[in-house]
Structure formats: structure tokens, C-alpha cells
């Protein structure tokens, strides 16, 4: 008898807990993140998710949006177009999210494009830079970061100052990114009287740059411009210095990052990084973000954490402005974005491309200490 009563109570408590949990999740506004959480880009994906979670916690602590908390649900996209589409579908149809964030790799972000059109759910990407993403006339797609072409247009003056001479050589990845960098930075520098003396393309899996650098050395450049993730950036820099190339190196990607500096030691100096965010940006908002992030995750945030953090805020403010969780209304509200983030002010143009925010040119000084050398405002395309 006693036993029966006990189990009856247990069932009641269980049912009550279940009812409560469905109640709270029905109340929360759900947003979804499709980031690569496994595979080669997983570190970036996980730090981006951490940044997004921090923003959600902050917003919820201040009462959420439309008087309700935000709930962030994430699915692994693995940087793979097919898996990212499946994850986006799952978040939209099963978890009923009202908007999406993602998916880091441009190919995966592009693939989700059709899915968000079909379900009329807005997507904000904070990292994917492939040009074509904002050229597909997709009213639900928003990019809260730069593209290499935009960099080229806005940075010509600054770059020609740093290049310290008229002869410029490119050593860039042989994909969309590297080719558009060589094109847009090249055009922008040529318009200011520079001469492009060599352009070398390499595969991302490449480790040996000795032959390409030999060719570049023979062209006698004043500055070398490069693109690449950690591994390419570190190998290019180290080998350039070892081949006797002491020129200024300006790099887009992982150049001047902490991990990069560790790998290229002792060749860290006279390198400039073109980067979306860096820890030494001097603002109260940035310092608070870094402190909070460190307190929560016991590590230093990356530019991916910042992208995750800022895109959540942009989305939350749009939902608030829309006064609704309807996808079309959120998308319309996103067009009116005017967000003051860690890296300047964000607005979107008609194509969903952000502008008016900052890009940073970071110099390595004193054996790999970062210093913001120039702040460049990205203009409307």
C-alpha cells in the first residue's frame, strides 16, 4: 500500500515536471544554430556556439525578447552542405525555431539558402564570406560580416600605406577566397599606383611553399599579401622568412592570431593581419565581453565567438522590433538593423549584406604582441 502511494506520488511529480517543461519551452522563443561541431572546422564551430550562448544568457537575464526567454538549439552541420541542410530542416520542422544562425563554411551556408526560402525562416551568417551568398536574391539571408571584395574596396588606402612600397606579390589559396583577394586587393592597390609583380595560388592542403616563394623572391616585391587558415598562414610566413624574404606580410585569415604566433615563432614580426575582431580592441564593451567569456568558458574568445555573440544580438533585436516570431516579419525587421556591437555599427543593405561596421588591421609588435594599427569602416557595396 505504502509502496503504491509512493509510486503514485512519483508519477504525479513526473507529470508535473513534464507539464512545466513543455510550458516553459512553449513560452521560449526558439532560435537554431547550424554550426560544424564535428570534423576539421569543429573548433571554430564550438567557439562560435559558445559566443552565441553567452549572448542568449545575457539577453535572458534582462528579460528576453517580447517578454519571453530565448532558447538556443544547435545541430551539427559538420561544414557539409547536405548535413547542414538536414540539420536546418530538423531545427525548422521539429524544433520549430523562428530563425537560424549558421553555418560557418560558405558552401554549407549556401546550401541552407534554399531551405530558408522554402520555410520563410531568416538566416544570419556571421562568418561565411563567399561573394555569391548575397547575390542570390534571397530575402531571408543576411550576412553580418565582410566579404573579401568589400575589404578590397574599403582598404586600398590603408593597404598601400602599410605595403611600404609599390611592388606587391600575392600568395593566396587557389579557391574563391584567395582568387577574389588577389583580384580585389590587386585592383585597389593598382588604382593607387602599385604594381603586382607575382601572383601564386596554392591548395589549402599544401605545406611546402619553397618553390612559390623562390619565384616571389625573384620578383623582388616590397610587400607580400596572403590568405589562409592557421596552417597555411604559419607555413607561408615561416618559410618566407627562411627564404630570406623579410618584407611586410599582410594576411587575411589567421595571420597574427594567437595560435598563428605560437606556430611561426620567432618570425612573428613585420606581419599585419586583416581581421574581423581582435582581443586588444580598446572599448569597455569589448573588455566586458572578454571577461564574461573567460569567466564562463575558461578560455579566450575567438573571432568566431564574437560572430556567434553578435549575430544573436542582431537577431534578438529584430524579433523585438518585429513584435512577432513570424519569419517574414523578422526578415523585414532585420532590414532595419542598427546594432552597435563589439566591432562597430551593423546595418544591412537590400541584399542582406552588412555595412558600416569595422575591420581591423592588426600589427604584430615585440614578438607577437597584437596592436590595432588601423580601423577600417566597411562601406556600402
Amino acid at each position, binding site marked *: 500500500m505504502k509502496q503504491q502511494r509512493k509510486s503514485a506520488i512519483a508519477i504525479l511529480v513526473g507529470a508535473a515536471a513534464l507539464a512545466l517543461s513543455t510550458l516553459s519551452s512553449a513560452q521560449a522563443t526558439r532560435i537554431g544554430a547550424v554550426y560544424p561541431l564535428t570534423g576539421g572546422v569543429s*573548433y571554430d564551430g564550438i567557439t562560435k556556439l559558445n559566443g552565441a550562448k553567452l549572448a542568449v544568457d545575457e539577453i535572458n537575464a534582462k528579460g528576453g525578447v517580447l517578454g519571453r526567454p530565448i532558447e538556443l538549439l544547435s545541430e551539427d552541420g559538420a561544414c557539409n552542405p547536405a548535413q547542414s541542410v538536414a540539420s536546418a530542416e530538423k531545427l525548422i520542422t521539429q524544433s520549430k525555431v523562428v530563425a537560424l544562425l549558421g553555418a560557418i563554411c560558405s558552401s554549407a551556408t549556401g546550401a541552407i539558402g534554399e531551405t530558408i526560402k522554402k520555410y520563410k525562416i531568416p538566416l544570419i551568417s556571421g562568418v561565411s564570406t563567399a561573394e555569391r551568398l548575397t547575390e542570390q536574391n534571397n530575402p531571408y539571408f543576411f550576412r553580418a560580416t565582410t566579404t573579401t571584395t568589400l575589404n578590397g574596396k574599403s582598404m586600398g588606402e590603408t593597404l598601400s600605406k602599410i605595403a611600404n612600397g609599390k611592388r606587391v606579390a600575392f600568395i593566396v589559396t587557389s579557391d574563391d577566397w584567395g582568387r577574389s583577394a588577389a583580384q580585389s586587393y590587386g585592383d585597389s592597390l593598382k588604382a593607387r599606383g602599385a604594381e603586382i609583380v607575382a601572383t601564386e595560388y596554392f591548395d589549402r592542403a599544401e605545406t611546402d611553399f619553397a*618553390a*612559390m616563394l*623562390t619565384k616571389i623572391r625573384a620578383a623582388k616585391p616590397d610587400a607580400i599579401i596572403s590568405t589562409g587558415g592557421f596552417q597555411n598562414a604559419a607555413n607561408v610566413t615561416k618559410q618566407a622568412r627562411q627564404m630570406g624574404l623579410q618584407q611586410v606580410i599582410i594576411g587575411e585569415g589567421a595571420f597574427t592570431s594567437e595560435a598563428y604566433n605560437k606556430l611561426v615563432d620567432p618570425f612573428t614580426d613585420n606581419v599585419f593581419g586583416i581581421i574581423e575582431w581582435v582581443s586588444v580592441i580598446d572599448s569597455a564593451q569589448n573588455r566586458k565581453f572578454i571577461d564574461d567569456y573567460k569567466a564562463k568558458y575558461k578560455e579566450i574568445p575567438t573571432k568566431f565567438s564574437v560572430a556567434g555573440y553578435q549575430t544573436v544580438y542582431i537577431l534578438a533585436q529584430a524579433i523585438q522590433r518585429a513584435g512577432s516570431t513570424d519569419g517574414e516579419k523578422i526578415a523585414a525587421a532585420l532590414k532595419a538593423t542598427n546594432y552597435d556591437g563589439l566591432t562597430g555599427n551593423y546595418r544591412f543593405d537590400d541584399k542582406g549584406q552588412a555595412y558600416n561596421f569595422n575591420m581591423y588591421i592588426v600589427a604584430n609588435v615585440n614578438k607577437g604582441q597584437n596592436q590595432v594599427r588601423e580601423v577600417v569602416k566597411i562601406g556600402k557595396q
Partner: protein
Amino acid sequence: MLETIAQYAFNGLVFGANYALIGIGLTLIFGVMNLANFAHGQFYMLGGFLAYMLVVKLGVNYFAALPLAVLAVAALGWLLERTVFIRLRDRSPMTGVLATIGLAILLESGALLTWGPQPESIPNPLSPMPIEIGPLFITPMRLFVLGVTVVFLLGLYAFMNHTRTGTAMRATFQNRDAAALVGVDIDRLYAVTFALGAGLAALAGVLLGSLFLVHPTMGDSATLKAFIVVILGGLGSVIGSAVGGLILGMAESFGTMVSSAWKDAIGFILVIVILLYRPDGLFRR
């Protein structure tokens, strides 16, 4: 122009010698065991990571870590032959290929889980500063890599031609059944061959890992390069792989003079040409 050519030739030599190491390991395993080892690049990757672990996590001296890492991978190769590949010996060649592809995925994912996706460098006591010899810029590490590789290639040549095990390997290359009939211990020979092949790949991994960086996915391109080298030289030919490696290294280096974007295509173009005119490779066995 001449100075540039000297630099290209030196770069090509360092790489050619390393391609030869990887290629010979692959061709030995193929020649003796009739097994196309698609996990070859993963042994190369493991060599690099074990050396990294030994130096960074355990504080072992670099010059001691190098042979230790190679021996550890060779031991793993021996163990894999005795436990896995011995069971597949008389199955169709496709079964062996599938097993090595599975092994490649297992090793690569295992490395990703253990060490994470970040590339790492193997600290070494050699100076990172270049030595200028006339027009040539050479780092001590590149010289060291070249020296060790050449010593091993010569040692391997002596081993194949002047030891009982080497002679037994060559006999098994030619005819496994006849070799067994005249008293070659096939079981032992297979294990030794697989261990040697894995060890050679690991050696290349440690050397190139110290020159550049080690990361979990570095094995994929190494496997591809190894197959190019082996096809160039002729499947199962040790001399062929040595020459094939050198040709590939030089072709890639000098190919950059024309266009760096084509660098990786050059190897495959060479393979197509060789297969068209000498379907058995440059050195028929």
C-alpha cells in the same frame, strides 16, 4: 635565373627524397603482400604526432623522439598485420583495400579526437634561421631531413640486396609460392614487411612534420602522393619508387616556375602519361 634554378633543384631534392621514402614503404607492402595500403598516409601522420607527443608532452629529446616514434609506428604495423591483415590474406584484394580504407578513417578520426584539429609544430633544437650558401637559402632542418632520408634510402638498398630478409622479400616479390617452397617464412616476412613499410611512412612523417606542421588530416595527401610515386616507378619496384619520388619532387618544384596553381596536377599528369606509354611504370619488376 641560375640562382632560382639552384633553389628549385634543392627544394625538389628534399621533397623527392621524402616522396621516395613514402613510396618505397607502399611499394614494399604491395609487392610482398599484394595489398594496396590506403592507410599509408595515416602511418605518416601518426609518426609526426607521436614525435610531437614525445617531445612536447613527455619532454623527450628530439633526436631520441625521432627513432622512438618510427619504431612505435612500425610496432603498430606489425601488430595490425598479425591481428587484422593475416586474416584477410587469401581473400580477394578488394577486401584488403576496404580494410585499409577503414583503418585510414579510424586512425584519422582517432587522431582528430586525441589531438584536435589544430596543427602543431614539433619543437626541435635546430636553428630556424636560414644558412645562405651563395644564392641558396637552406635551413638546417631541410639539410637534416635530406641527410637522414638519403642515409635511410642507402641503408634500405643495402638491406634489400645484402641481407637474408631482404633477399627473401625480393624472392616473395617474384613468386610467393616458390619462395615459400624454398623455406621462406611467409608469415614472419609479411609482418616484417608491413612493419617496415609503416615505419618508413612514419619516418617521412616525423621529418616533414618537423619541417612544417603536423595535423590529423595530413595523411590524405601523403597517401595520394605515395600512389603517384609507386605508379610512376612501377608497382612493387623499390628502385622505381626511389626514382619516381625524385621525379615527382623535381617536377612539382620546377612546375611552379610555370604555374603554382598546377602544382598538384603535375603528379597526376605524369601518371597519365606514364600509364599511356609504359603501363607497368618506368621500372617493370
